[in-house]
């Protein structure tokens, strides 16, 4: 009986001890909690706020990405447009050059022809032959007395060879033929055996050939009109 009572007392004592220990700890926590609760609340608020901002950020970021992508597309488009226009421009320039609608310069030769007095003058046929020979030799641009030879150019005798018309313009002696092309090829095309210039020289006409490393040939001054080409 006595033993049981002691055990009982000790047990209740220990139980009280454990209980009060935990209780005191809890009191401490609760005391601190006044501040902590506010902090927790703020924390929760901040968390929701943060989540909101995060979602907004993601939204805006997505928009930004989209816009950036669009800008990139536009840029690409523009670049390709630029590229296309540049190519077109180049092509146009090349075409103009080939057509003779631009001033060109480069290495080549200058042929000067002057008829012998009291003899048959140098005719358009002679000029045609020379031009033809030069073209055969690979001439890139030809002009006679600054009249550019283009694909519609006519070289004709007027009034039984008393004067020559090129591009519908009357031209007078001396005839100065400027050619851009390989200098030696040009020269050999009109000189040597069967060369028209040499032939003219043997006939007594004055003919000189000068080499020039920078000849400037002016553009065709007229207009190229097409009526029947559709």
């Amino acid at each position, binding site marked *: 009986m006595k033993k049981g009572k002691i055990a*009982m007392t000790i047990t209740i004592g220990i139980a009280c*001890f454990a209980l*009060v*220990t935990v209780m005191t700890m*809890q009191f401490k*926590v609760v005391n601190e909690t006044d501040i902590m609760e506010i902090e927790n609340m703020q924390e929760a608020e901040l968390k929701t706020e943060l989540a909101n901002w995060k979602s907004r950020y993601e939204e805006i970021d997505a928009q930004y990405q989209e816009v950036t992508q669009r800008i990139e597309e536009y840029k690409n488009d523009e670049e390709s447009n630029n590229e296309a226009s540049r190519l077109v421009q180049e092509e146009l320039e090349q075409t103009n050059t080939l057509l003779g609608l631009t001033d060109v310069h480069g290495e080549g030769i200058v042929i000067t022809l002057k008829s012998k007095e009291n003899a048959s003058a140098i005719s358009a046929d002679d000029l045609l032959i020379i031009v033809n020979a030069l073209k055969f030799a690979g001439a890139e641009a030809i002009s006679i007395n600054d009249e550019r030879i283009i694909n519609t150019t006519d070289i004709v005798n007027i009034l039984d060879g008393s004067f020559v018309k090129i591009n519908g313009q009357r031209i007078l002696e001396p005839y100065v033929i400027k050619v851009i092309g390989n200098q030696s090829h040009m020269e050999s095309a009109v000189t040597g055996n069967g060369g028209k210039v040499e032939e003219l020289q043997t006939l007594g006409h004055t003919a000189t050939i000068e080499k020039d490393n920078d000849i400037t040939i002016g553009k065709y001054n007229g207009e190229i009109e097409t009526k029947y080409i559709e």
Partner: protein
Amino acid sequence: MIFIAILIGCILGAILGLNAPMISYTYSSYLAIAIIAALDSVFGGIASVIKKNFDLKIFISGFFGNAILAILLTILGQKLNVDIYLAAIVVFVWRMFMNLGTIRRYYVEKWSDMIKEKTSKKDVKEKNKTEEKQQENS
């Protein structure tokens, strides 16, 4: 005897509790419900001591079992989003009042008995005195 044990336990517990490290706020709700359960067990133990039917095994199992069950119920309640701990608190506090009522009744009865005894003794003494006086007079 038993009150000395309770007092010593309380003092030691308070000292240890004040020096114990802080627990995380997250667990304080579980701890609170465990405290209520343990408090109920202690009151129950005291009441049973007074009733003289104290059983060590029942007390210890009740002390720990109730506390653990209360904590588990609270956790379950949080998981289910139902405030089950309210039911536990109602039950424990109700039982606490019952036990306190038992203890109170016992001591009140004891006290009133003591007063009755004292008064009856006084009456007896006074009676004796008067009788003595009467005898002297006579």
